[in-house]
């Protein structure tokens, strides 16, 4: 027998459980079975995490995981970059609130917890602890500054753009400044490299994909043919092949005196690959725009460019946000393929740590769990942000 509840009725925990978990004998059986399963899995997992696992290969190699071979005496540069980002998260939170709030708080709390982990100073040095703890401090400072000083979106956008520029200069260094010597991209690695590859890939493939999608729908036969051929060729080739070509074949075609940075070659390959898929996603969104929208835009006198920019793309892109973010997440994880052309991104660093040190060969589970967790944190953040953006833009949808 099920009992009827009014939808607005507040349920006590017992009522809630009866309604949702034990509404019939079958459901009760399923609930018990699921709880038992969860109990055994969680018990095993928690026991493994806290008692069985040996996290030494992780805790002793933080620098390798996060920065790869980046020179040890220059570590302050990526460190400063993260602090800058923490400050900007705080600033955006203070000025705008909304989705950024969750990220700023997560960043501050996460870093704070890491800084206060109850393990020896040997495992996490005092300097590193202070750096961890500086993050929540900067988020807080940014928040206060954002609330008091920032009006409108423009300062934030400028701030983030400047931060990207500053990060690039900080990481790569500048010839001629003694305290900022150039650091070859050959030694960039770990999470830093994963981030650079994914971020540049995402930022570059998005506009390229939109242009390709528009080109494929163009009324100019040559443009249409070029875009279609590009999209179909790239979609027919595995990413690994494209990375090989970008890394090995590209230099053969270019004149000898032109040398493209290895990371740049990989980024170009990934961007071209991702843009083809992006184009197909966007094309789906474009096809969903009713002809009446184009007619109304023409009738009020907008030209073709304005129609695309103001009417068609905002609606088309909104409908394909989930697909686009899925694409971004795939791109983020595809960065692990850069290892085949010799780039030591996060996963490759993990493997080299396990395979290069005999005492840690048996501890690969710990290393891969840690790497998996890092990937999950960032991909989950992306899909969370995507859902927030979707619901924020959902207003007025017809």
């Amino acid at each position: 027998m099920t009992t009827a509840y009014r939808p607005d009725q507040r349920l006590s925990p017992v009522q809630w459980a009866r309604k949702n978990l034990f509404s019939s004998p079958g459901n009760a059986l399923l609930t018990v079975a699921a709880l038992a399963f969860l109990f055994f899995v969680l018990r095993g997992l928690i026991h493994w995490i806290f008692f069985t696992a040996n996290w030494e290969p992780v805790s002793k190699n933080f620098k390798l995981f996060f920065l790869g071979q980046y020179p040890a005496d220059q570590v302050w540069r990526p460190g400063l970059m993260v602090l800058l980002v923490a400050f900007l998260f705080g600033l955006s939170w203070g000025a705008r609130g909304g989705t950024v709030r969750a990220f700023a708080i997560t960043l501050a709390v996460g870093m704070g917890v890491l800084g206060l982990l109850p393990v020896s100073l040997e495992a996490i040095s005092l300097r590193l602890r202070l750096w961890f703890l500086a993050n929540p401090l900067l988020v807080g400072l940014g928040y206060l500054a954002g609330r008091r000083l920032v009006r409108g979106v423009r300062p934030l956008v400028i701030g983030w753009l400047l931060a990207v520029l500053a990060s690039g200069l900080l990481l790569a260094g500048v010839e001629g400044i003694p305290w900022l010597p150039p650091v070859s991209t050959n030694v960039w690695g770990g999470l830093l490299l994963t981030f650079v590859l994914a971020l540049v890939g995402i930022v570059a493939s998005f506009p390229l994909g939109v242009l390709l999608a528009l080109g494929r729908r163009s009324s100019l036969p040559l443009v249409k043919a070029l875009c279609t051929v590009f999209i179909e060729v790239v979609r027919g080739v595995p990413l690994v092949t494209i990375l090989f070509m970008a890394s090995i074949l590209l230099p053969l075609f270019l004149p000898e005196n032109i040398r493209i940075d290895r990371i740049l070659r990989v980024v170009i390959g990934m961007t071209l690959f991702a843009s083809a898929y992006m184009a197909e996603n966007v094309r789906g969104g474009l096809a969903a725009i009713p002809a009446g929208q184009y007619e109304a835009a023409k009738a009020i006198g907008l030209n073709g460019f304005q129609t695309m920019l103001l009417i068609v793309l905002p609606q088309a892109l909104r409908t394909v946000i989930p697909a686009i973010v899925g694409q971004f997440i795939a791109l983020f994880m595809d960065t692990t393929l850069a290892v085949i052309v010799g780039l030591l991104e996060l996963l490759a660093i993990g493997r080299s740590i396990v395979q290069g040190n005999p005492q840690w060969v048996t501890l690969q589970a710990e290393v891969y769990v840690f790497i998996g967790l890092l990937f999950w944190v960032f991909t989950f953040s992306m899909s969370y942000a995507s859902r927030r953006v979707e619901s924020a833009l959902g207003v007025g949808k017809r």
Partner: protein
Amino acid sequence: MADVVRDVNPGSDNIIICRDVHKWFDNFHALRGISLTVRRGEKVVICGPSGSGKSTFIRTINRLEEHQQGTIIVDGIELTHDIRNIHAIRQEIGMVFQQFNLFPHLKVIDNITLAPIWVRKWPKAKAEEIAMQLLERVGIPEQAHKYPGQLSGGQQQRVAIARALAMQPKIMLFDEPTSALDPEMIKEVLDVMRELARSGMTMIVVTHEMGFAREVADRIIFFDQGQLIEEAPPAEFFSNPKSERTRLFLSQILHH
């Protein structure tokens, strides 16, 4: 636009001149030589059975459909392939669609100010001020900051009228503006159109609302199978139609 050639005196009394306009959709001959002249300030209602080409015809006037033969001159500008002419003509003509075609991702006020800001290059404040005046005029100023999806059909169509008027057109085209509306909302839209007619706007209205036609139109035009069959002032059109096809159409539409 200074570089648009006006080959007829723009002060001329005839604001729209169509001569022998033909249009084909592949093999289907949709318009078979339409000739029509509309005077400044005149209200013309076009009626006829569905598929008779009446919508296609008014859509050729602002080049939503391209005519393949004949001449169309709007306020002294000939409608040619020259994009500058097309652009100049579209700025003089406002259009209201059967399906409203509001931009669902923009608020009501932004729907209205979009073209004045981007095409007329008005400052935002001026565009918004005029948009609010237009919303007052169509009776829904309180809806300015909602999205079209939150409005009723009748309200949406009134926003669409305000959006077209925001470009300060000399001519308004209405393509079955009440056909997608629930019966109780038709009146509110027709009231706005009546008010617009009284203000002296040149209007071409495709509609089945014969009451509105009788009351507002200076001239009623009957289309059938891509041809202009009959044109007459309302009184004469309803009481004494000359063509057999008009009589048949009227009997079907008036006595059901």
